[in-house]
């Protein structure tokens, strides 16, 4: 089996049958998104690492009972979602939020990637947890809104609403820092 093109489901089943290499491919493919999904919701990094390790531990233990009825990412992120929900989520503004808010940035600085990232994280930190989770899942995975609804155990409409409000809140927050989206060249004056 060509691991690079194999689906997540086939890799998981291969691992369940004893193919360790398939698990290594699967892990390499999803470790970063899953890590960010947990870390960006849990402000405590040590706790986030524990939860991340626990998440993969549960995935490994459940390998023998895994069936390819559901998409692997739906199944794995559902495990991660349950872990995050079960643990304390300390909603804490980023330490450098004050610095960002108080400092005046030149236009050049505003376009600095590092600054932009910090500002985005700051704004994400202000989102309600359910909106933040939905936004991260939408960004980190290729799951449809319906699949995200399965992961977070909410309705499709609820997930749509959460995502819409998350984006709206992020835009408002970024606008305070002077960060706006560039108007599209195809607009016919709607942005005027």
């Amino acid at each position, binding site marked *: 089996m060509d691991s690079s093109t194999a689906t997540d489901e086939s890799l998981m089943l291969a691992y369940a049958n004893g193919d360790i290499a398939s698990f290594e491919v699967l*892990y390499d493919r999803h470790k970063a998104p899953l890590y960010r999904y947990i870390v960006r919701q849990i402000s405590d990094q040590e706790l986030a690492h524990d939860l991340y390790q626990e998440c*993969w531990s549960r995935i490994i233990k459940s390998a023998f009972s895994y069936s390819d009825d559901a998409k692997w990412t739906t199944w794995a992120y559902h495990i991660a979602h349950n872990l995050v929900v079960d643990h304390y989520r300390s909603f804490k503004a980023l330490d450098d939020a004050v610095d960002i808010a108080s400092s005046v940035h030149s236009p050049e600085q505003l376009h600095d990637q590092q600054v932009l990232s910090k500002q985005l994280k700051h704004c994400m930190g202000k989102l309600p947890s359910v909106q933040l989770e939905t936004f991260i899942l939408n960004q980190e995975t290729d799951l449809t809104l319906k699949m995200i609804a399965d992961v977070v155990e909410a309705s499709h409409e609820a997930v749509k609403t959460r995502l819409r409000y998350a984006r709206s809140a992020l835009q408002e927050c970024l606008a305070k820092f002077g960060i706006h989206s560039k108007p599209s060249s195809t607009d016919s004056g709607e942005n005027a």
Partner: protein
Amino acid sequence: MNHHDSDDDFIDGLYQQSAKETPPAQLDKQILSLAKLAHQPSPFAKMMRFQRVLSVAAVMVLSIAIFFEVDKNATRYIEQDAVTPQQNRLQSPPSAPASDQIDQSVEMHESSQGIEQDSAEQNPTKQLKSKAMKKAFKEQQRGFMADEISELAAEEQSAVGAASRSASAPSDSLKMEAPNQDQKPDLMLQDIEALLASGQVEEARILFEQFKQRYPKYAVPELIREQIGKGE
């Protein structure tokens, strides 16, 4: 493209550019080793698996052994039951092959005659526990009837009449007598001994008198003589 879509794209783009976090190498190592360990069965698990198979095999062997044992015992009991009645039949006196018929005819005779026998003599039939005692009592009854027959015969000869001739009775008693006459003397002595052992001296004496009439020249054991003599 509307404003909202451009804003969404902007935020998505912003996010993707900022999404640089990756798990530390130490965490990667720990998780991958966990994945390898999960597929290595522990020696304990191997042993448990072997024990499980062994237990199942032991249960099967035991079940089969118990099944055959039960079957063997059942066969043995059936054979014993089959043998025992035969043995009983063999042990019964050969000179009285029609003993059941005789018993029935004795009962019929008594009922037809309406003989009011002594309760002490009738009741022993029900009270006697051993087969020997029952047989002795029946022999006694037959003996009584044999005496009766001889008396009747004498009366006939003296032309008294056939009042007491319950026609079937004499023939039945004659039928009964035939086997009595054929009874071996030693078996009669055994019955006498059995009666003496059970304390029924009177019946033993009656049977002894009959024995003497039939086998006057037969040697009687001293023990019986003494016991009969003590009872007098």
